[in-house]
């Protein structure tokens, strides 16, 4: 399954690893913050509707 990377295995795997890792962090952070903001906003909206 795994392709033969030869003596460059580290370079290739590290590149893929680091890049995908960074992308994953970026995506997850964006999604998490979006979720949180959505929820927070809803809460605040509810509150402000009830009060005003």
């Amino acid at each position, binding site marked *: 399954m795994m392709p033969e990377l030869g003596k460059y295995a580290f370079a290739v795997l*590290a*590149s893929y690893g*680091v*890049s995908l890792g960074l*992308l994953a962090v970026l*995506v997850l952070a964006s999604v998490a913050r979006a979720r949180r903001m959505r929820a927070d906003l809803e809460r605040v909206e509810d509150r402000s509707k009830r009060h005003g």
Partner: protein
Amino acid sequence: MSIWEYANPVKFIRTTDRVLPWISAGAAICLVVGLVWGFFFTPDDYRQGSTVKIFYIHVPAAMMAINAWAMMLVASLIWIIRRHHVSALAARAAAPVGATFTVIALATGAFWGQPMWGTWWAWDPRLTSFLVLFLFYLGYMALWSAIENDDTAADLTSILCLVGSVFAILSRYAVLFWNQGLHQGASLSLDKEENVADVFWYPALVCIAGFVLLFIALVFLRTQTEIRARRMRALIARERQA
């Protein structure tokens, strides 16, 4: 029906909500297909061996790192000229994405350079200007987060983006000049005619498409978040005032 309608936050959120799933799915499919294809099903290059696989991440990331800044520049100009809030927030939302792409391009470049040039890093003009670009991203984001007033921050960062773009181009030429005739040899780049044969090029194209879509999806999502954050600040402020 003008494009400026999307400058309305509500309209923007509604529209992007509708298209986001599609764009995200497209980004995911392109990235998976492109990377799997590139990683598992392409031959090694006769000169670079398996390192050519780094190409599929390195090039799209590098391209999008530059394009993200260009997009921020356009968005900043729109804010300065037409004062559409969504545009300023989109520029803000794009910065961390662009910065991450820059880091990815730098990191993959470094990993690639190790076997190819025998060094992680060389002061090659292209690499150097990328590092400078990264600094611009850092400064831009730092300025956004240092200023409280939203409109002031938008104004200042737009001007910074404008001035910064001019200086980024200047730096690019300065760096080219600086490292000319001093440091040859080590640099190596794939000669398109010869090496980027179709076997390498097709998966790369798919990956590029994936990165473009990913960028769009992330910017849409993050802009939505910024809009909501802004709205929340306005609501809380109004509550306090009452």
